[in-house]
């Protein structure tokens, strides 16, 4: 009569459980990495989406006709030429737009005060602008995933006035 585990049964059960535990560990590690990665501003994803939506909605609702970027000692100001006055103030740890303050919450994250700006003329008097506010992690722009990117394609009119380039 059989009285307990055979070595074969033990080996099979240990192997099976080990395989599943290893798979679980791998998944949990990747989940941890994606959710709490120190490589990018993972805790600021919602604020990033809110800022982009707020700015882009204003571009569309208040007709963007130009902008001016001004860098001061410890902040950068973007003055949007809209039907209504809108200014974005960028400091290393936060952005103020539309009277809302969006603070960076991710570890070691700071806004780069050197904003990247592109202006391109398109066919039929249309133009494209791109503004990118990089987020630095420990002083490095590790990925564009957390950068604040604003885009606009518009039609030129008498009031349109953009700076064609910007150097920090």
């Amino acid at each position, binding site marked *: 009569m059989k009285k*307990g585990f055979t070595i074969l049964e033990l080996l099979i059960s240990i192997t099976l459980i080990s395989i599943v535990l290893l798979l679980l560990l791998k998944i949990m590690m990747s*989940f941890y990495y994606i959710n709490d990665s120190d490589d990018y501003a993972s805790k600021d994803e919602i604020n990033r989406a809110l800022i982009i939506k707020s700015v882009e909605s204003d571009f569309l609702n208040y007709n963007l006709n130009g902008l001016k970027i001004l860098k001061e000692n410890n902040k950068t100001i973007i003055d949007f030429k809209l039907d209504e006055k809108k200014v974005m103030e960028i400091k290393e740890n936060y952005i103020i737009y539309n009277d809302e303050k969006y603070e960076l919450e991710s570890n070691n994250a700071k806004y780069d005060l050197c904003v990247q700006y592109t202006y391109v*003329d398109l*066919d039929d008097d249309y133009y494209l602008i791109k503004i990118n506010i990089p987020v630095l992690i420990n002083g490095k722009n590790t990925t564009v*995933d957390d950068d604040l990117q604003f885009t606009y394609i518009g039609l030129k009119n008498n009031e349109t006035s953009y700076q064609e380039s910007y150097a920090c």
Partner: protein
Amino acid sequence: MKRGFALLETIVVITFVTVSLLLLYGTFTNLVDNKRKTVLYDDMANIYKIYYLKEYLELNGLKTMETSDILKLSCDNFNLDSCSLIYDEFSIANLYLVKGNLQDYEENNYFSNFNKYLDSLSYNDKYKYWLIGEFWVEGQYYYASIGVN
């Protein structure tokens, strides 16, 4: 008198534990997939890029284009000198016009990443087409789409 596990009992226990762990594994896999989708799919900045591109291309013949399933749009489809410029500025690798109520298509003709994104879209009759942008940024494909009527 029986003093230990019988083979049958051992197998039942192992099966139970394995199934439980596999269910847990499945849950975590879904969480990771969903998390990855929030980063790679329909990023807010990319949605606005596709929106502006759609508005601009609609002025240049986008609405006249038709397809029964998926149409890959290149700059040859538009009479625009600045088309490739926009593609470059927006980091668009490919642009697709996809039937709004897409049922079947030849998956083998497309990247697996693109097929996965298509799986995540909800097909209905609300939009005639989806304009889908495939962005190539930092060695990864990102996707964003907007409805076209």
